[in-house]
């Protein structure tokens, strides 16, 4: 018997992982949630059939979305995380002793429950006393926030489905308002490779550029996401992601990582020509 999980990366491209067995399947008010186990990637989580994370490569995504803003901001104390019900971002954030509070806003409570039960690699720090979980639409939550966060991490699903609102100009504008004068917002920025993803990436970049004075993009290699080439957005009111970066200071913190390091930090902002062009087109 062979059981395969397949996701269409485009109407003409499929990506499959051989499944050993399914651990969970259920529907929440918002989406279908599945957890599978596999020989190659370990356990993996899908929402509405789209790959969210695998145990084998989640470290790349979570380290890159967390340590880049946390190392640029000189003193990040109050952090807001939107989405991220799998707990991966929270796990990375709790490694910073300087952090005083982590507000996590996840629309789907069931995602958190399922991850706590089946994905202990990521959902392992929800009990940290600095973590406060709000089960709410991120768009709504942030509307009421003003001048109160140092770093906002937007760990959204794709720009269709429940995560749609997290790719909108009203949301980015609200993030700007919610950040302090030297705040940084980082977001999951889609992929530049396949046409449809690239269009979503450009749309989102345009909206961020219009909302923040500094808006840069960096990349990482994530094997289980479409094309494997993934981008993150770095939007900031004051700090430039590489000019204002002190890698030595970050290294002194002694946070042990598997992907992120200070040399890679700077390098991640060096983008292929075609990606630079896609971004320039909308700037």
């Amino acid at each position, binding site marked *: 018997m062979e059981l395969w999980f397949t996701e269409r990366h485009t109407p003409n491209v499929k990506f499959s992982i051989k499944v050993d067995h399914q651990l969970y399947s259920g529907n929440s008010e918002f989406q279908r949630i599945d957890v599978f186990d596999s020989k190659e990637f370990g356990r993996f989580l899908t929402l509405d059939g789209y790959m969210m994370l695998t145990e084998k490569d989640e470290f790349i995504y979570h380290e890159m979305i967390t340590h880049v803003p946390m190392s640029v901001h000189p003193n990040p104390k109050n952090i807001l995380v939107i989405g991220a019900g799998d707990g991966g971002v929270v796990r990375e954030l709790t490694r910073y002793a300087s952090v005083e509070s982590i507000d996590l806003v996840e629309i789907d409570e069931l995602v958190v429950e399922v991850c706590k039960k089946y994905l202990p690699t990521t959902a392992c720090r929800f009990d940290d006393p600095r973590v406060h979980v709000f089960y709410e*639409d991120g*768009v*709504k939550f*942030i*509307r009421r926030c003003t001048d109160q966060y140092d770093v906002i991490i937007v760990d959204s699903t794709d720009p269709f489905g*429940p995560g*749609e*609102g997290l790719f*909108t*100009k*009203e*949301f980015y*504008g*609200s993030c700007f*308002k919610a950040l302090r004068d030297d705040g940084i917002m980082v977001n999951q920025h889609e992929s530049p490779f396949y046409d449809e993803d690239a269009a979503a990436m450009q749309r989102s970049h345009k909206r961020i550029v219009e909302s923040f004075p500094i808006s840069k993009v960096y990349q990482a290699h994530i094997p289980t996401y479409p094309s494997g080439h993934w981008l993150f957005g770095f939007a900031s009111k004051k700090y430039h992601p590489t000019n204002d970066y002190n890698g030595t200071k970050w290294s002194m913190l002694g946070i042990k990582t598997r992907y992120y390091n200070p040399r890679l930090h700077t390098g991640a902002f060096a983008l292929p020509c075609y990606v630079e062009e896609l971004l320039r087109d909308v700037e």
Partner: protein
Amino acid sequence: MADLSQTNAPIYEALRKFRRMRVVPFDVPGHKRGRGNMELTEFLGEDCMNVDVNSMKPLDNLCHPVSVIKDAEELAAEAFGAANAFFMVGGTTSAVQSMIMYACKEGDKIIMPRNVHRSAINAIIITGAVPVYVNPDVNHKLGIALGMSVAQVEQAILDNPDAKAIMVNNPTYYGICSDLKRITELAHAHGMLVLVDEAHGTHFYFGDNFPMTAMAAGADCASVSMHKSGGSLTQSSFLLLGKNVNADYMRQVINLTQTTSASYLLLSSLDISRKRLALSGREIFAQTVEMAEYARAEINEIGGYYAYSRELINGDSIYDFDVSKLSIYTLPIGLAGIEVYDLLRDEYDIQIEFGDIGNVLAYISVGDRKRDIERLISALAEIKRRFGKSGADMLTQEYISPVVAETPRKAFYAEKLSLPLEETAGEVCSEFVMCYPPGIPILAPGELITPEIIEYIKYAKEKGCQMTGTEDINIERLNVLDF
């Protein structure tokens, strides 16, 4: 209609049956189930093209219904509590025109509020009826026209005992209702028909705690935009009749201007939507109201904006309010409604129903998702943060009472002269000028052009209102009567 109930949709059922018969078409439409126009078929879908068919025996004929359309119309009448119902494929415009053409011949008087939709004044031009305008009450703060006050209606009736009918706009675009029952009683006591433009009130018939419907109030005719809150396809509507209207004569009136090739896409959409509302309208509109109420509370919490509701009720010209409407007054944030309307689309990819000088209207329906409501609220908050100004220097007056110098028909067909807008003060206009939406004329044919109106038109243009109605597409010139 012996064995039919609201669970049936006779036209829809007949079309499904017809599709299974695989009849070979040697009739129109010439696209022949889409095969003759593949690009269109790929765009609209095969299922859609398959039922774009002509009238024929198994599918009945809208001009003279005897089988499935007749059954469907009877079911619709039952669902709306009407004596008769007509499926209309020319929009609510055709329903409004039919009821006026039914009630009035050339020279007959009809009492109506001036803030009617252009379709009503068009019907006046076609029939040659003489409008007797009752100026609606105006809320000066919001700058919007309200409903008809009973005392004013009574005065108009006493002044014009020979009028044939009264037309009522209920609810208005903004959700404001008149005392329909009292107005109907008054009109009937004086032998006048009551025609209700209920374009924005389909849901009143199916939800709980909505304002009174035209049929419940005993009105004679009501035009209902099923395609607005009822969920059918654009351009499909119902014309409802009370028990004292001659339905067979009404059909003849409708056939004066109605197409003889009624679209089965529109007809089936009316049929299916009627069934849906009859079976689950209560839950559907309870959800709609819940979303509207939620959005209203959140928007009012932003500050500056005023999303109004039942607190406006004054027992007369705001006799009731439709809480499913999300009307928002924008002037306190220093932006005209039309500016907020444009910003929502241009900056935030959110299209709302309309914006006028002082207000915007977001149309809420069961098709909305909670997360889209959140986007709308956040976008409004962002517009205030990014573009808000002090509310000073904003033109507030929205409704200007017209001075009628000539009947609309005479003015429309008269010899005319084209003049630059600035030079038209004191002249009589021979065409319409309106912002669309909402399509309520600022000037109608036969009305005196005043400096105040010219200023209003210029201001609306400057703020970006989409102006329509004039022969000159750019609205730099107006046609006036050449005496």
